[in-house]
């Protein structure tokens, strides 16, 4: 994996697509390619409360990237210094091998250049000491970027706050559904297929995602 950690705090995400739009604007991309994307699932009623998932899909910058292995020209590369996976546009011949190889659809086709474009964590911005465009502009600041050890463990902190808070009050109706957030939804109330799909959207099982996608289509 790259040295970096791009964490989407789903509890604070409102699925506004700001990341997606700012990504494209920052890379001056026209209609077509989406180096990062928000996929909304829902709303559906869960224990009387409507819940939706807003899943952020950039490139995961793999440890052993399928796309780099598949690229015949050496255009798709992993930067040795920090592990960022990027395309050298001057070498890309538009063969789409990386698009076929990537299990998550990260490499995107750019019809204007007839080459591939993908999330490179805005490497030009990083090198200037800035954050990726999606992170800087995120409406709610739910995207966090940095070295993994630098990012505070928001999930633990919030859980602690929430537990302390809930002890103080009697809720009615009983708070059976999580107040907000998506990851916690796996606790019952779903059919098997739903639960499975949700695990898949949590990206815990990448290989199965690929298979699932195939069977869907």
């Amino acid at each position: 994996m790259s040295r970096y950690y791009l964490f989407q705090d789903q509890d604070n995400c409102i699925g506004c697509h700001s990341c997606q739009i700012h990504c494209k604007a920052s890379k001056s991309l026209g209609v077509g390619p989406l180096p990062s994307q928000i996929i909304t699932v829902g709303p559906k009623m869960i224990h009387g409360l409507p819940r939706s998932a807003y899943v952020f899909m950039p490139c995961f910058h793999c440890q052993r990237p399928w796309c780099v292995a598949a690229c015949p020209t050496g255009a798709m590369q992993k930067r040795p210094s920090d592990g960022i996976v990027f395309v050298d546009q001057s070498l890309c011949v538009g063969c789409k091998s990386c698009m076929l190889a990537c299990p998550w659809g990260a490499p995107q086709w750019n019809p204007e250049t007839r080459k591939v474009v993908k999330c490179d964590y805005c490497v030009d911005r990083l090198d200037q000491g800035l954050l990726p465009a999606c992170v800087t502009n995120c409406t709610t600041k739910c995207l966090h970027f940095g070295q993994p050890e630098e990012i505070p463990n928001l999930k633990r902190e919030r859980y602690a706050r929430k537990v302390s808070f809930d002890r103080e009050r009697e809720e009615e109706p009983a708070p059976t559904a999580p107040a907000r957030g998506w990851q916690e939804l796996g606790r019952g109330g779903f059919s098997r297929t739903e639960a499975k799909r949700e695990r898949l959207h949590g990206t815990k099982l990448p290989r199965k995602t690929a298979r699932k996608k195939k069977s869907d289509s």
Partner: protein
Amino acid sequence: MAAPSGQPQERLKKVNSICGMCTVRCPIEVHVKDGEAVYIQGSPHHPAMNGSLCPRGGAGLALLHDNERPQGPLIREGKRGEGRWRRATWEEAYTHIADKLTEIVTHYGGRSILYTNRGGPWQDIQKAFVRGLGSPNYTNHDASCARNVMHAAKSFMGMGRKDVTYDLKNAKHVVLQTRNMFEAINVSEVNNLISSLNNGGKLTVIDVRATISASKANNFFLVRPGSDYAFNLALIHTLIKKDLYHKNYVKRIFKDFDKLAAFVEPYSPDWAESETGIPAGRVESLAGQLAEAAPAVIWHPGWHQARYLNSFYVCRTAYIINGLLGSIGAKGGLAITNKAKDVGRKGLKSFVDLLPAPEDQRADGLGWKYKHFDAGPGLLQLQLKAIETEEPYPVKAYICYRHDPLMAMPDPEKIKKILDKLDLLVSITFTWSETANYADVVLPLSTYLERESTLAHKGGLKPYFFVRQRAVQPRFDSKAPWEIYTDLARHLNIEPLARFRSIEEMWAYQLEGTGVEIADFEAKGMVSLTDKPKYRTLDELKFPTPSGKLEVISEKWEKAGLPSLLPYQPLQAPPEGQYRITFGRCALHTQGHTVNNPLLSEVMGENELWINRNEAARLGIGDGEYVEVSNNGQAGQRIKAKVTEAIHPECVFMLHGFGHRLKMESRAFGKGAADQELMIGGLEKWDPAGGAMALQEHFVTVRKLEG
């Protein structure tokens, strides 16, 4: 800032400006390289922005580079709406307008000119211009937006809706009733609400469908469409009956509390259950939760509340609930807004004071016929009535600034017939719109990245002055509003405005006596008027009502024959086989003028018709299938169905702003449906107490399209 010194970065200029993609007008930072805008982000200088910007703001460069907008002044050649234009010079267009206006004024007087805009912080110069024309008919868009909220605020607090500030960050419980804060995005508001939620604050959403805001809520009430008033009455009943209200506050600050207590006596949660469909116990539970969080509670009175015939009373009871919880004037509640003078500073000098107020009565009857309404921004449906009937006098010229009444108001076909009675229709706009296409003259406005503004003042806990800066030069033959108004003033001999030749002169005039200089705006694009947020206590405040208190009974409304407390009457239910039309906003689009934006249309190119799963099953409609939605067979339009359990079965919902019919908007053309077209006869449906349109008092049929 973080850029190391090197050749490429040295040419990069950061311009502090104001976004113009929607009417929120968030502060932004535009990066300009060699005269080209290359990147936009939220302002890093505002704590609740901290670089954040919504998707519309991110699509600003796409707007700038879009060629599908008016590129120079146009004078109509064909019939109205036919789309045949003659490209003119600014001089020709100004002369054409000035000649026409002079002719109309000579014949019918200055009062025969109507001017509408969409409100906002830069109205001063426009008001001055309309005064210069000699017309009392300065009007904004608010009849199809927040007029009910405004009047509800005035009837209870004596002040306007913006005279209180939603102190979301410090709130412990926020109730959104129809207001959809996480989709109709104001970046600072969103972040302050998120901050409250992260600190254990609660969110309650009351709506007819599960919005994104609802997807983050602790409590969600899927109320029967049009029953919000019953819900609120039951809540007031519970607060009073169960002694959950703030007694000291109410004793000190309420007028006629006893009348309120007597009035809500019959409106118990059990009674409300049959109206709203919400179990009584849940209303009682909510009342308890609110009392626990009081006074740090915000029961949001709404923004776009031009929905039902009783929306005024929904908003008014929302304010009353805030009052009962002691949240009006409280930290974490509806804190009192400070203006420059409230923090010991002098406000901006206004242009409007340079001209005498017109003596004529308003054509919409506000101020003389309808005395309970705020005459300042008028009511557009009544102005249109005046054009149609020529009563109380003929209105023959209409200037629309950044306003598209054919999109914003109901029943565009009817409006077109009314507009046909005009001798002159001018549209000042930066995008194409139905109104621009129907105009006699189109004056292209530069996009917000290509124009600067006069200075503006923003009230709040920390009031400040701000300015929009020109980041880049116009790509086309377009102008900034101050240029258009001062140019027109010169052509029409409006002396006090004609003398301003540059924006610098105008800024200097506005800043006279304020102790602030234009150079002070350089660093942040704003100048704060105080260091710390100021919470004014009730000791420092007298409500500007006749009694100086919060008035349950408002004499002004009673005198107009409108009860302050309206006995509940259910609204008309949808006829058999029909659905109430409801509408709303999303994060990606605003007021119809972003639908043709290349980046935004890519993510959302068309709107969908939300329909309840059971109803859809009955009609044989599957998710994603196309249906025809019509008003009893009229105004039928094709739209994709979104079949969901998350909407009340009595209504259908669509996002507003779609269904464009202009060929020059290639990306928006023919995509989705337009809600306003379904509201046939809608100009006659408005709330007599609040003045706003009742846009959700229309019913539609839905039919599956074959193939």
